[in-house]
């Protein structure tokens, strides 16, 4: 736990040895496709959808130009993409896919099955709003919809993190104590299509980091035949589902180990979350993905005006780092929780719901205002985040739904 805190409060600290890197200008999609090229999976089954289409297209080029050894299945739907991934991963092949929004929604049934069979499938996901109405821009409704499916979920602030996270996702998912599928996600268009400076690590360094895949079982070995996916009734189902929980619990330790190892190797270590000016903060914003980047600016601006603002950027949403999070927030009296999706529970957004539950268990009752913002890609400016932080600091403790949950920037 101590180590966790140490890593999480300085996740971008300089590591020891840094292999030769190339600095390039890349979009988030290009960065994720590069990660897939270096991961070089045995099988990839994917279907195009905005804004993740490019990942699939770029990767198809890698396949057809012979830059990877991957067999690419051009499936006829995302449901079949995940089904084919399940078949492939059950056959001992390192398996990847990419999708977004409606595509992830169409996979929904199979997401649970992949996790239930403990298959370390890795997905490049691009966060996009869900229909209806149809909208191709960023919010987190798609991945939040899969939050209870048993997948490891990692959010990325920028293209670099998307790349770094996808590489680490392979190691995390395949770890023998974990064996759960994992996705690393970016924010649609904001990151997926935004061009940024990006450091590409050498192919061999990435391949060495990932290592060889040693599957726990394979349908292609007929010496000891087995049945996967038997009907499972009242007498065993519970135990089997519970085993995914064990994997998720173990993933917490593994994520930190691998995040540290990644730092040693490539120069940027990763934890569950990253804090900016947390130590003396009187008001903290908790955010996922690209908004954390905007939040950094807001926090610095407020600090210059003498307001003790801080930022907590959550990287890992599943497993949810509840204990570490409440520890990091223990001294913070006012918290603005930024939800880029709604859970429609008429109580709070998904992130706020989780954090509040964690705080309750820790006996901490700070002032919390939940902001639901940016649905369907509606922009959020750093001035707005400054306003949100100031407003959260000044407000009295919310005592009804309307003051607890603010739909920020929506026209009533």
């Amino acid at each position: 736990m101590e180590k966790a805190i140490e890593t999480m409060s300085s996740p971008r600290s300089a590591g020891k040895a840094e292999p030769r890197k190339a600095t390039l200008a890349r979009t988030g999609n290009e960065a994720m496709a590069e990660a897939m090229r270096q991961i070089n999976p045995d099988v990839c089954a994917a279907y195009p959808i905005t804004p993740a289409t490019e990942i699939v297209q770029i990767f198809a080029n890698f396949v057809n130009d012979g830059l990877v050894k991957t067999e690419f299945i051009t499936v006829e739907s995302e449901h079949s993409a995940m089904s084919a991934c399940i078949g492939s991963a059950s056959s001992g092949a390192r398996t990847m896919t990419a999708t977004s929004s409606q595509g992830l929604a169409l996979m929904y049934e199979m997401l649970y099955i992949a996790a239930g069979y403990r298959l370390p499938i890795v997905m490049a996901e691009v966060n996009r709003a869900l229909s209806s109405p149809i909208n191709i821009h960023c919010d987190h409704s798609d991945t939040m919809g899969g939050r209870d499916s048993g997948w490891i979920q990692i959010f990325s602030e920028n293209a670099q993190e998307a790349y770094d996270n996808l590489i680490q996702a392979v190691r995390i998912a395949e770890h023998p104590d974990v064996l759960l599928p994992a996705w690393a996600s970016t924010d649609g268009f904001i990151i997926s299509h935004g061009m940024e400076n990006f450091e590409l690590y050498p192919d061999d360094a990435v391949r060495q980091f990932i290592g060889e895949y040693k599957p726990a079982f394979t349908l292609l070995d007929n010496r000891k035949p087995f049945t996967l996916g038997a009907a499972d009734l009242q007498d065993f189902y519970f135990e089997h589902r519970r085993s995914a929980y064990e994997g998720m619990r173990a993933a917490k330790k593994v994520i930190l180990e691998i995040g540290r190892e990644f730092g040693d190797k490539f120069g940027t270590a990763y934890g569950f979350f990253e804090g900016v000016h947390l130590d003396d903060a009187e008001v903290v914003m908790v955010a996922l993905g690209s908004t954390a980047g905007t939040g950094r600016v807001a926090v610095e601006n407020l600090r210059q005006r003498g307001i003790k603002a801080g930022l907590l950027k959550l990287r890992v949403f599943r497993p949810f780092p509840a204990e570490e999070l409440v520890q990091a927030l223990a001294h913070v009296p006012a918290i603005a929780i930024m939800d880029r999706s709604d859970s429609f529970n008429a109580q709070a957004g998904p992130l706020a719901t989780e954090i509040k539950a964690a705080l309750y268990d820790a006996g901490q009752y700070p002032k919390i205002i939940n902001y639901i913002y940016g649905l369907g890609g509606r922009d959020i400016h750093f001035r707005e985040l400054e306003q949100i932080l100031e407003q959260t600091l000044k407000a009295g403790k919310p005592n009804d739904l309307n003051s607890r949950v603010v739909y920020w920037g929506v026209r009533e």
Partner: protein
Amino acid sequence: MQNLKQMSNQDKVGLAGGHRACAGCGFPQIIKMIYGQSQAPVVTTCATGCMEIATTIYPFTAWRGNFIHSAFENSAATISGIETAYKALKKQGRLPAEQEMNFVAIGGDGGTYDIGLQALSGAMERQHNILYICYNNEAYMNTGVQRSSATPQGGHTTTSPAGKVVPGKIQFPKDLTAIIAAHDVVYAGQASVGFHIDLMRKADQAFGMVGPKFMNVYTPCRLGWGSDPAQTLEIARLAVETCLWPLYEVAEGRWKLTRKIKEKKPVTEFYKTQNRFRHLLKPENEELVKQIQEEVDRRWHDLLQRCGEGA
């Protein structure tokens, strides 16, 4: 082809005894007849349905070889992933060079004609080297006998009940075998559990071909059809003899009738053996039965033309 005598000496093929299919169910025999023809070990995927439930209740399994079930509509997609993983690992030398395997996907008529049609079409179009078997019992049996697009016209199911106004299922079943044949697959065949030799010969031929193969195998369900379990094979044969379920195949684009019917029996002969058609034998449904008979005749005539049998 492995004949019945040779097959009776094979243990370790297809299904072990002790599974939970009803007495008189047709599908266990289908597995035995087809799997007996495979020269290589088989990896199986099976859609959710009666077969999957009856053969795998944890911690037991009746499957002798490697088997995976994942969902209802995706047997073809799942086998695509397995066959592709095999290709990938074989190419990389991560599987023994001499290792051969057959990849078989199974689905009921619901899992194949209806909810799984898209995944099946995709897998066939992508030309995976697989054999897809539809065990067609003409309804969703696992969930309590609901209609599927394979249910015969006039057939009573729990969602196409023989009511006071509507006499069972309204539509004629869709011709899935022809739909799959139109995908330019190397093999599409229609078989029946009632004709073992024909079924085994088709499986033998399919296993010998490289590319996408499809078999649509007819199998009575005593529960859903309201039939005598001792009569399963006779009923399956009657469906062929009435031309409700013609036996044919399309191998590399060539249509061939594999069982000629010299004296076509009236559909009512078939109806008499099952409760699901009881209402059709009443005088008020005479006209409907006449229409169905005409449609069966028309389709049979078309099939003969296609198979170059003239008529």
